[in-house]
């Protein structure tokens, strides 16, 4: 959890906006450090977290979260964290064996045209707290869905429209119905602008999810090129605002990723420069 980012987003583990759909995106950069932030943030806030890890193994996130002071193994044992290991599950689908009893979540690998309904059903069953739970089960806070990352589904043959439907359904269930939060990572290749949505690639998907979300964090490299002390810039954009302040608000920050966190500062105020 990055304390500076918390103050930028006006959120602490004790009090944060509920029902938010946060879109983390990057273009020719790597925004996955923000996913680690949100994972440790929501675990610390004692929320029930459903994590769809489609690109890395559990041990990867576990090792990094250890540095941020959160134990994923413990959270999974206690039932706070439900982790879908996409890579492992996909193996069991592609090489089916008699003994595998994996969930149907990654069924879209068999036939990508079917869509992501099964994945949504997996999410829905994970975030719903079991009614009439066993004794000794701790009560967790509002549910949170983290997806890392959504654009890999495009590479697996799922159409961008199906991904948008999936994110819509997740939003309807997690954000609106259960007042939980969603954090999704969308990665773009920064290819040349396609012809206004005729080619439904990652840019089109990014626009679609931007329309659905309430907060976007867009990570890019510095426009001036590589810098050793500043790893890139983050543009934070608040889209929907309840009550006053109908307008969208944008802020730009530069960041540097350390061993145990990341620091955010206003452009031009890097410690290397001042």
């Amino acid at each position, binding site marked *: 959890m990055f304390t500076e980012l918390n103050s930028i987003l006006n959120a602490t583990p004790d009090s944060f906006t509920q029902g938010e759909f946060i879109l983390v995106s990057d273009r020719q950069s790597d925004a996955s450090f923000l996913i680690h932030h949100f994972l440790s943030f929501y675990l610390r806030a004692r929320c029930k977290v459903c994590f769809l890890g489609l690109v890395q193994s559990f041990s990867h996130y576990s090792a990094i979260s250890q540095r941020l002071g959160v134990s994923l193994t413990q959270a999974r044992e206690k039932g706070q964290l439900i982790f879908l290991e996409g890579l492992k599950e996909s193996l069991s689908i592609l090489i089916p064996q008699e003994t595998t009893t994996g969930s149907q979540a990654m069924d879209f690998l068999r036939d990508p045209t079917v869509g992501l309904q099964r994945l949504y059903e997996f999410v829905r069953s994970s975030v719903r707290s079991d009614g009439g739970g066993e004794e000794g089960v701790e009560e967790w806070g509002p549910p949170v869905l983290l997806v890392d990352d959504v654009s890999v589904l495009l590479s697996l043959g799922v159409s961008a*429209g199906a991904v948008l439907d999936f994110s819509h*359904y997740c939003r309807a269930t997690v954000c609106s119905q259960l007042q939980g939060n969603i954090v999704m990572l969308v990665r773009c290749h920064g290819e040349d602008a396609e012809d206004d949505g005729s080619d439904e690639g990652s840019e089109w998907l990014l626009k679609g999810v931007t329309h659905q979300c309430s907060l976007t964090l867009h990570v890019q490299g510095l426009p001036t090129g590589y810098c050793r002390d500043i790893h890139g810039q983050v543009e934070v954009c608040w889209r*929907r605002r309840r009550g006053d302040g109908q307008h969208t608000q944008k802020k730009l920050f530069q960041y540097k990723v350390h061993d145990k966190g990341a620091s955010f500062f206003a452009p031009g105020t890097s410690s290397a420069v001042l």
Partner: protein
Amino acid sequence: MLSELLQGTDTGAVLIIQDSCSYSGQHLLKSFISAALNKEEAVHVLGFDVSEEELKDGLTASTQRLHFHSAYTDPLGWTNRTAFTVHQFCVEELTHLLKQTSHPKPVTLVIDSLSWILRHVSPPAVCKTLQQLKKGGAVRAVIGLLHADMHQRGTVGSVCHLATSVITVAPGTKGDEAVAKTTKRSKSGKVMQDEEIFSIKGDFSVTVVSKTSHAGHRQTEPEEHQTDPTANLTFNIRLSDTEREAKEKLALPFVFSKEKKTALLQSGPGSGRILYEPDANDDYDQEDPDDDLDV
């Protein structure tokens, strides 16, 4: 023109609000809903993009005449809890839906958003439904929100061609201001265009801040003050009146004026004279061969 559209729409009007990622047209749509409710009209909302709570959040007008048909929770029938699915977007189903809540007032149908429908239903079918709604008597007016950056230009163009008015919103220079480009087609066929800067207050009332004139006539900037190059110098290069006269009188050295030509052709007093006495063999022509030259 934005205020006119908010005040009232004619029967059979289709209004489309186009927005993009940089500025959401949701608030403007809510302003239209609020204005319609204030005029005591019945408003039916087909909600795909927003939930009922989010739509009603902040609307101060009486929501008694607002009927929300939720297509947000289950638009594709995945959870079998549907109120309205995207595939029910056709005239028969819509008329049936609207007839369920009977009321004497004319109905305004608000679609939020058309982009959702266009992703699942083919554009020709959507256009056909819109056209039938326009011509039929079930609704008085249709207001739709369209995310222009999510579709091909052709699709956006086709849908907007059906509309009687199109408002394209974009972010403005200041924080809470936005720019609205409005195109209105009246029944007589006349097309009016306008560009305004507006802002939306907390109660969803729209304030038009200023009107920028049509794209063709830019506001004429005040003429730039001509700077005087002879000012602020350490030496004086200004001319007095006599000096200016003398300067204009001066004949420049290499300009071949009329005076110079006559002076060269007619020899002055005291200069050498050439006497020529032609021989018998010479062909002496008195005429000057260079006479026709216009020098």
